[in-house]
């Protein structure tokens, strides 16, 4: 593959000399390492370098200016929206809210500390070339009336292109937001979306984040979420990205205040040689916090998925209650599911549990449904849905729950 490395960082508009230097430095770091491959422990289930070589003849960095595109909005429930086209913030609409309490803008290097954190080579690449993304800050005590949908729209001219962007979400004390990231694209050819999201949740604030893939897609999606949770805050992330050819969601979560609560849940239906992963790093740094992770995947036809969940409990983080479970349902024997739980515990009064199962559909359940007139195929569909819907069912907002279920139906049955 010919990676178009000659792309000029200076072409990125409105950046300072200092920033150019820092971006060049990040690019240097990336070039030294290249795309992650199996030799790295964290990527042992995924040879991304090979995947990219197999699927891309060349790779260009996106600098396509915003396209003017009217996107069909979700009609299932009332919501605020922001629209990103090819990674750039294009429009915003907060008609259900008091806008004084919301800061929204294109992402700039507002937070110095975000810059240049060299976590892995994909983030180095992002640091070097990111353009676009959004910055969102919610004032103290402000609670959103309706959910916010972030439309991530990609146009059809992204062949062999990598879109790098960054988002930053800050919830100040006692604020509240339900955020849905809704990915849509009309690209028939392969492209990469490499996103870095920074989340800060202050005292008593709550963020529920739902990542939903709205269509079948040739996108290779990588997302790294770095989040910080303060005292008594709540962070929930739900991953429903079925339909993507490749996805890897990484979460690095620092629980920095007592009595905080963190939930990561995922329900994925993988079909037709797709590859999806979730990797979490949950760092319990203060006492009396809870975390809950549940990953459920259904795999069909040469698919691969992995869950790597690490729970770290610092010595002072007593009374931590951390739970993680991954379950995979394999519909045939051509697919593969890998789980790697890791617990690193330095406190002595904690409750940490982990589990992982994988298997085929329960034959007794199929038999029971068939004795009620339901065909074998429909019985398996019903059980597949049931397996994944458990995650959707745990969503407290009924409108979002119904929307997720409708999407899952489409992801499973393709309509």
């Amino acid at each position: 593959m010919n990676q178009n490395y000659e792309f000029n960082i200076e072409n990125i508009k409105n950046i300072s000399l200092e920033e150019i230097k820092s971006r060049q430095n990040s690019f240097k770091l990336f070039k030294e390492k290249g795309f992650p491959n199996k030799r790295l422990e964290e990527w042992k289930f995924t040879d991304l370098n090979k995947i990219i070589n197999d699927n891309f003849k060349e790779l260009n960095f996106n600098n396509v200016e915003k396209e003017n595109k009217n996107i069909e909005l979700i009609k299932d429930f009332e919501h605020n929206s922001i629209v990103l086209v090819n990674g750039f913030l294009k429009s915003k609409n907060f008609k259900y809210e008091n806008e004084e309490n919301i800061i929204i803008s294109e992402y700039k290097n507002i937070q110095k500390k975000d810059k240049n954190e060299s976590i892995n080579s994909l983030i180095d690449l992002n640091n070097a070339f990111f353009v676009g993304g959004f910055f969102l800050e919610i004032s103290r005590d402000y609670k959103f009336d309706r959910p916010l949908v972030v439309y991530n729209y990609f146009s059809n001219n992204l062949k062999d292109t990598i879109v790098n962007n960054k988002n930053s979400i800050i919830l100040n004390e006692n604020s509240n937001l339900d955020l849905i990231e809704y990915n849509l694209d009309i690209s028939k050819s392969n492209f990469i979306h490499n996103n870095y999201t920074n989340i800060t949740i202050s005292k008593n604030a709550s963020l529920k984040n739902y990542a939903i893939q709205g269509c079948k897609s040739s996108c290779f999606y990588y997302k790294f979420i770095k989040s910080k949770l303060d005292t008594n805050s709540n962070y929930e992330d739900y991953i429903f990205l079925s339909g993507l050819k490749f996805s890897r969601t990484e979460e690095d979560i620092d629980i920095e205040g007592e009595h905080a609560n963190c939930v990561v849940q995922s329900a994925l239906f993988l079909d037709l040689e797709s590859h999806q992963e979730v990797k979490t790093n949950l760092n319990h740094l203060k006492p009396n916090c809870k975390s809950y992770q549940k990953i459920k995947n259904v795999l069909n036809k040469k698919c691969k998925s992995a869950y790597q969940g690490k729970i770290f409990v610092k010595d002072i983080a007593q009374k931590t209650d951390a739970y993680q479970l991954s379950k995979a349902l394999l519909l045939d024997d051509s697919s593969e599911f890998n789980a790697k739980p890791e617990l690193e515990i330095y406190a002595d009064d904690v409750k940490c549990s982990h589990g992982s199962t994988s298997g085929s559909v329960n034959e007794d359940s199929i038999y029971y449904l068939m004795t009620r007139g339901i065909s074998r195929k429909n019985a398996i569909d019903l059980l597949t849905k049931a397996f994944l819907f458990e995650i959707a069912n745990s969503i407290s907002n009924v409108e979002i729950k119904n929307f997720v279920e409708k999407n899952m139906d489409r992801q499973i049955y393709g309509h």
Partner: protein
Amino acid sequence: MLEIKELTTKVNEKSILNGVNLNIKAGEVHAIMGPNGSGKSTLANVLSGKDGYEISGSIKFNGENLTEVSIEERAQKGIFLAFQYPLEIPGVNTNNFLKTSLNTVRKARGEKELDTLTFLKLVKEKCLELGVDEKFLSRQLNVGFSGGEKKKNEILQMKLLEPKLSVLDETDSGLDIDALRIVADGVNSSKTKNNAFLIITHYQRLLDYIKPDFVHVLSKGRIVKTGNSELAQELEKSGYANL
């Protein structure tokens, strides 16, 4: 309606049924009693079409040879098995399951599928008839149901699907008197001259509520005795040891 001739079944070379003969006509209620391991549940499973049995002999249902008919087709043709241990299926909503099942069977019978509202009205009616709480419908299929609730759910399904032949596999086991009465009422109120019941049980107790026309005793894979409902009372006194 059902004609079983010289039915034998084997599982991994082990014989379970050794030549069962049984005729059930429309309008009749038959009971099969017998000690543990006599093959009662196997008979019920074989009638439903469950895989894993090596079968010889014949089973005819309304003149049609059943041995090659799949599980779901048997159900669509009107054979219903009420399970001894109904499966818990997390994530499957009871109401959706009942609707899917009924509409599949209706479609196979050449009847119109029911829309959500018509179905809901029907299922609520049946719940009321059975004295089953409607809340039941919004729960996951059999998940966290008590033993009694699971059995009531089986009877509810039976009432909805209106099968020609209902096979009740130890539906009475683990039931208290009130639940037993609900189950029995469910059967009695479903009885017509066009359908039939095969009730498999250990004890005579259920037969106090559902009066069978015939009682058969199954022992070591054969029907060793057939009589009327008095036979059940006799067995209750003397046990199976003398057979």
